[in-house]
């Protein structure tokens, strides 16, 4: 019994940590736009040789 209680508490803490991480992610706006970031990560900067910065 006591082992189970220990496991439940440990499991609950881990689960709660993930829930807290999710709440933080939502509150910092990470779910506001789920379309753009997955595309942005695939885009590369133009080659330095080509790019002209004026």
């Amino acid at each position, binding site marked *: 019994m006591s082992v189970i*209680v220990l496991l439940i508490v440990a499991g609950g803490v881990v689960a709660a940590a993930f829930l807290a991480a999710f709440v933080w992610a939502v509150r910092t706006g990470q779910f506001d736009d789920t*379309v753009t970031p997955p595309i*942005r990560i695939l885009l590369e900067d133009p080659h330095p040789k080509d790019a002209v910065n004026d």
Partner: protein
Amino acid sequence: MHAAVPVSSLSLSAPVFEPAIAAAVCRHCGDACLDRPVVTEAGTFCCAGCESVFGLIAEHGLSAFYTCDINPGVSQRAASTRDPQRFAAFDDPAVAARFMVSRGDRAEVTLPVPAMHCASCLWLLEQLWRFHPGILRSEASLLRRTVSVEFRPEAISLRQLAEQLAALGYEPVVDQEPPGRTPLARRHLYLRIGFAGFAFGNVMLFSIPRYVNGAPLDPEFQTLFGWLNIAFSLPVLGFSAWPYFTSAWSALRARAITLDVPIALGLAVLFGRSLVEVVTRTGEGFFDSFAGLVFFLLIGKLFQQKAFDALSFDRTMKSFLPLSVRAGRGDDLRVTPIHELRPGDEMVLRPGEVVPADAVLVDASGAVDFAFVTGEQDPVNIERGSYIQAGGRVAGRAIRLTVARAVSTSRLAELWSHPVFSTPKPHWLTGLLTAFGRWFTFSAIALAALGAALWWPDGRKAAEVATAVLIIACPCAFTLAAPITLGTAMGVLGRAGFFLKNPETALDLSRVDELVFDKTGTLTLGAATAAVRHDEFTDEEWRWVRRLAAESVHPVSRAIAGAETPAGTVSDVDEIPGIGIEGLVDGHRVRLGKPATPASSAAELTAWATIDGGEPRLIRVEPADRPGIGDVVASLAKERAVQLLSGDRDASAASWRRLFGDRMQFNQAPEDKLATIRATQQTGRRVAMIGDGLNDAAALAAADVGIAVSDDTACLVPACDAVIRGDRLTRLPAFLDYAVRGRRVIVLCFTVSLIYNALGLGLALAGRLTPLATAILMPISSLTIVGLSAGLMRTRIGRVLA
């Protein structure tokens, strides 16, 4: 170069779009180069606008733009018609301050750029800092089609920034008010789903041992697990599911029953009975089903919320007016926000600007077109003292006006205050679900009573059966079917260039049985794309004619002149309204005028030009019908009634007769269009209005579905239920079929979930609805519905997307 370019044939029944030569493809936007292409070393472009955007991008070493995604460029054909002064309002610090957030020497602005549509657009818009040292950082959102730019205002003004974006082909759309913040409701929904999912998973952990065991666990475990389940489920009840309770409560207080009532009832009974079972140690409760149910319900809601991602559909009259004009008393003219205009103020409006308030002309003469208000594109000549209504657009040259009435009391504003704009449109789905909710609630309660009566006098068993009926009768699957089907449909249609205001509109669309078309801008294209044919002019002579035509504001002249003014010096110009224009071009006397007798074919406009007193030679202007539109209307007319309502004169009536028969009306004022829509609805028909101008706004608002046509992504469309890209109008029949499919899928889902419910009700009435049976039945029915609705709306969509 400018010799006959045969474009659309005149007969509407024949295939309308037939380029005689295999047209080159524009290097920038990928459109076919039909009329007057621009050829440079870099390639062929459909217009000078595209060529200049291409050059600008190449100059900054960003040509990778063209390899990121397929045809990323947006055609710039309409760009040359825009007012170069349109961002002048940003020169006013007070106006600029409303749009920017300043932090020290930096400022940030978020501008909607509707032209953004692909990975390449995203990439280019995030490289903005390469174009100007004053731009520090830019971040684009494909979802909302906005770009946020951080910049140093002393290095680059807001106006220059907007012009820079426009130069790249991403015309920012500037409304009277800056765009609002991300709605918080969306974040709340994610949090609600998060808590429900969290509870669902954990409650499952404490419920499965009982199911696997096949018999009740040791009492101490059962009690511990029961209380843990209560602890996990409380946030689901009090936070995740709470909106269902408040919604049901407000419905009941209004003596109405919506679908949320049986849901709230089912959830309350589910939680209550589980609580009693755990507290009295008589069972393990249904907490897993409870958390799972709420989780699935909220997933369905997520589909509904897609509406928030869409472009803004709510336009007010002021969206069409300039932010500010140059106005004041006497000679002291300065940039004045339009709401500060007072009667008696003088204002100077440039060509292309819209008159913001009813006003009187101070200059001797001028020209104004009322295309926005009435749909008539032909400019009207006005003289000193003429009363000009708000909404007119200055043509020809700048004019000076005296404000007669404040912006808010103009006739345009009065039209806009018509109740048709403030009455929310009832969606068929809303009515359907309300009727269904009522029927469902009463049936569930009646069945619960029946169950209790069957098991009476065993009071405990009777209560068990009654609650079980209410639990299983919870219409979860029903609430999922419509949002997922219609939400998916909305997404697919959006990819195809047909943007719905909300998912419910898809269902309204499926029920439309009469389509009412506006003519100008909907069935036909603007003068800028009209095909001009002549056959006797040399290239040089033709340049003179075009150069002279560029001096005129008449639509036929504009069409002859083309998008870019040709080279040449003009002097001695004399224009007689209704007759023609005459002038010296490069020393040659050119006359351009109307034929004495009306053209033989009404769909074709003709003009005559003489050079240095020679023989008059014929020029034909074909106001281009939208390519393929004849076939589309003909195919729509097979299953639905079609009607034509035009704001302009009936010059081209004959050519439309074969499609619309007698169901055509011309010279229709906005109020007339509204009345016609209403009258059609009175006959029991469900009407879709398809139009493009402000003059259609009232009709769009009154129709069951108002569809605005938009050729230029940066152009404002009136308030409507859906926006269709002009070049996708030809696919309207496929879109309507797809909407009808959506309705059938919903009916199928309702049928399937009724079967599941009947199964569950059988178990419940027999007193055999165990927590395990519930835990299996409920998710399976929900998942079936999700699979059916999302799956069927995603298969065989080739004809929609093609």
